[in-house]
């Protein structure tokens, strides 16, 4: 499929990422309402979900597509979600008929995981309308079971996360809902909503936020709504856009964090008894450092400060800084400016984001996809623009981040995923353009001579891998270094990423074994001694009682 690759090296030499978007993706841009963006439903764009669906060992891609207000009003289906099969070399081709999915009302995002524990990756798609479930028929195709799946209601689901919150070995599901939208009731652009003196689409302020939902997995692809029983309903609902799974306090139970637009973000502590408690304010992750709620869009999560606990990075609206919440003694401090991530985001409106060691130096970097919600941002006096550059920030000494060139052209980007699409040990990117195609960016780090890096990719199998903490310990000179990564499939904003962890053992001499430890959800542990790195390995949870 290499022949189908459209290679666009945008800059010579030291460009970290090179665009290699396959023709199959370019040929089918997504749809998301009108170009004028008269309605709020038209601005979020579609979703991306990366996993291996056909079981060939290569990562595949689902593009969740949208619709138009006219089609929705006429009761017509929107564009269907589409599966593209990966060739293991950053190439994708449209999957055959057996994988075709019908169009829903208006697709947004989703998540992928083995819902029925048959060893194959199933799919959840969120949408404006009832969320949908597709079971994988043994790696040969999808079968939709939405009708009997138990996902209740027909809200505007934005992002979804799979987790095993009760550690019962069956995947559960959290769906983050945005707001109550009905084009016959919500005002459109030109009906009195203004931003910086310009007429724009209306919302989210003034519209009704909708509570998020938590479903307990029944292990066969069906779910039971436990939102109220689990206490997963805050005092005030937020305009939910992004969701992340994490174990913020290291107690072994998977917690949830949601990014809410123009309302405080929520941190849901899993209390270990099947219930959750919202504690964002107490832990300093509900607002910015000034106590102001921001317009949360996407979330990245990783142990950026090396204390073994996850840190959070939230993308926000233009005029607000993206927020980096670093963990400290079980609480968080907003430190965006102190590490150089604040000012760089003030004129951008951020969406998809993820941590990853993009330059293979042992430190976690960040990518942020940007693009405004208002085409009117191009009018005078807005201090921002509709199309914007996407950003890659490399972490350097002392935890400070430096922006490096990425992408060249300014675009209106939305969801994004980083994953090692070609298995070469560095993390590539996929970015979805609003009303445009998904674009693939190949990371060139692994191919450079300077980066004969000691990397390790770990792929986890089984539901208790969702939320597992994975540690790599190794000797670097006289120093014993421990790196912590967290396995999850929640991609932050309308995205799903593969259940993998990526390590770079900077300074590893190659002498002496590195130790890999996996703390599976539910308490099981695996330990592995590795004589060599530079490869992908797959781990399953140990049989009960064994280690």
């Amino acid at each position, binding site marked *: 499929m290499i022949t189908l690759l459209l290679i666009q090296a945008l800059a010579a030499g030291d460009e970290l990422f090179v665009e290699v978007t396959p023709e199959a993706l370019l040929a089918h841009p997504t749809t998301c309402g009108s170009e004028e963006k008269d309605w709020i439903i038209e601005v979020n764009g579609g979703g991306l979900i990366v996993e291996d669906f056909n079981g060939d060992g290569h990562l595949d891609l689902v593009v969740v597509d949208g619709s138009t207000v006219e089609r929705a009003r006429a009761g017509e289906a929107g564009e269907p979600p589409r599966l593209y099969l990966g060739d293991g070399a950053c190439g994708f081709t449209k999957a055959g008929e057996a994988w075709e999915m019908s169009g829903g009302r208006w697709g947004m995002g989703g998540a992928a995981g083995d819902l029925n524990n048959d060893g194959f990756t199933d799919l959840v798609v969120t949408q404006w309308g009832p969320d949908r479930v597709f079971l994988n028929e043994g790696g040969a195709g999808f079968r939709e079971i939405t009708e009997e799946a138990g996902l209740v209601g027909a809200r505007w689901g934005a992002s979804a996360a799979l987790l095993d919150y009760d550690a019962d070995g069956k995947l559960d599901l959290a769906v983050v809902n945005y707001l109550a939208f009905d084009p016959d009731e919500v005002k459109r652009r030109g009906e009195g909503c203004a931003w910086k003196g310009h007429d724009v689409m209306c919302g989210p302020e003034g519209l009704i936020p909708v509570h998020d939902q938590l479903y307990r997995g029944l292990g066969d692809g069906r779910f039971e709504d436990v939102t109220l029983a689990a206490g997963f309903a805050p005092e005030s609902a937020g305009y939910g856009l992004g969701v992340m799974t994490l174990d913020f306090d290291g107690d072994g139970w998977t917690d949830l964090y949601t990014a809410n637009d123009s309302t405080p973000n929520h941190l849901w502590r899993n209390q270990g008894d099947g219930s959750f408690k919202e504690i964002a304010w107490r832990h300093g992750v509900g607002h910015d450092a000034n106590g102001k709620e921001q317009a949360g869009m996407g979330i990245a999560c990783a142990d950026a400060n090396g204390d073994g606990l996850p840190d959070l990075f939230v993308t926000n609206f233009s005029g607000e800084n993206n927020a980096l919440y670093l963990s400290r003694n079980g609480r968080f401090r907003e430190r965006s400016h102190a590490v150089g991530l604040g000012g760089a985001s003030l004129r951008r409106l951020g969406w998809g984001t993820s941590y990853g060691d993009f330059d293979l130096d042992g430190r976690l970097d960040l990518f942020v996809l940007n693009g405004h919600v208002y085409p009117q941002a191009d009018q*005078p006096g807005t201090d921002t623009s509709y199309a914007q550059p996407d950003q890659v920030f490399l972490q350097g000494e002392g935890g400070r981040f430096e922006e490096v060139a990425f992408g060249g052209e300014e675009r209106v980007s939305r969801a994004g995923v980083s994953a090692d699409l070609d298995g070469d040990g560095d993390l590539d990117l996929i970015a979805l353009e609003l009303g445009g195609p998904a674009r693939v960016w190949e990371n060139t780090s692994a191919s450079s001579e300077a980066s004969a890096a000691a990397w390790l990719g770990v792929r986890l199998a089984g539901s208790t891998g969702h939320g597992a903490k994975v540690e790599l310990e190794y000797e670097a000179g006289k120093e014993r270094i421990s790196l912590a990564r967290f396995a999850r499939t929640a991609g932050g904003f309308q995205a799903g990423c593969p259940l993998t962890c990526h390590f770079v053992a900077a300074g590893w001499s190659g002498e002496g074994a590195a130790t890999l430890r996996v703390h599976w959800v539910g308490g099981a542990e695996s330990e592995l001694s590795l004589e060599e790195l530079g490869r992908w390995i797959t781990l399953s949870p140990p049989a009960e009682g064994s280690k």
Partner: protein
Amino acid sequence: MSPFAALLLALLPQDRAQVLDRSPTEWSEAPADHWVSWDPKAPAPSAVEARVALDRALESAQRGDLVSSLAGWFELLEVEPEYPPALYQAGVIYFRLRRYSDAAVAFERYLKVAPHRAGDTRALGHCHYSLGRYEQAAEHYERVLEVGETPGLRFGLALARMRLGEEDAALAGLERVVELKSDHLEAHTWLGQLHFDAGRTAEARAALERAQALDPFAPRPWFLSSRVLLEAGEEEAGLKAHERFKTLDAVAQEVRTLEGRLLFKPQQPAVHRRIVELHASAGDIGRVKGALRRWEALNPEGIQARVVGLEAWNSLGRRAEAAATAEVLAAIAGDSAGAWAVLARHYRATRERVLQVQAEERWRALRAAQAQSSGD
């Protein structure tokens, strides 16, 4: 200025949109060194066109109509290219409209034509800061500080340093600010923030208590206090501070949104009314006064602002302010039945019987006349 004159100065909606669509990059240039010896004490341009534009700009600004004022400065700059006060004031208007890039262009032009007036341009540092250009902000503040030290400049520089991750320099800068101006609310609040971030709980607490004493209605010190108290294990006090923060923040947020609307369209009585009511609901006397003052400046003869003011002062039990407002309202109420009804209620509450009876009679007469005219 009469209400008629104010109406003449105010722009029609389509003209307002046109002004907002313009950019400072379209200003033409003056001949080289034309303003090199310009002195702020020099008389304003005397040409008729220039005088008309200047009057529009100044009087509109005084009334809080920023867009009409901006139109005036544009007109003046067409007649007198790069006239330094026009560049400067246009920069101020752009800054108040939160158009920081445009404001920066205006201030930079001002600096170009009047480099000897760098001391006037603290706001250029604020523009860079608001655009996330912290290095440039810090450099500019340093430059202006060479001309003279003020608390505002020190504060701007301290925040820029903080945003650059230079927290020790920021701390020193903020301490200097409170040396220069001990009641600098923001400086005390940021000191609280910096101490809290560094884990210095006692210092954070002291700074935040000072901020709360200076302005008990500012939400941010309460937010930070709630976090400091909780981390210090003072659960009850922390929760109480958080509740206070939520109450004040709800007001502040709504006010912020409403004020954003007024920036571009200041004549919106319902919005002004809501702002006054919000501040009154929090018991924030100072901000009620400020909101009323701004509304009254837009409509010096406006009855509605006084009616709302009188109701607010009465609800807050502020007799002196209510009496003063009632006096003004009685003088301008004219044929407004609603105004007389409010006055009658006020005099009844203050037991000013004669005035009460007069107001009630006036109200009845106006009601009767209205009923008759609607019957006709």
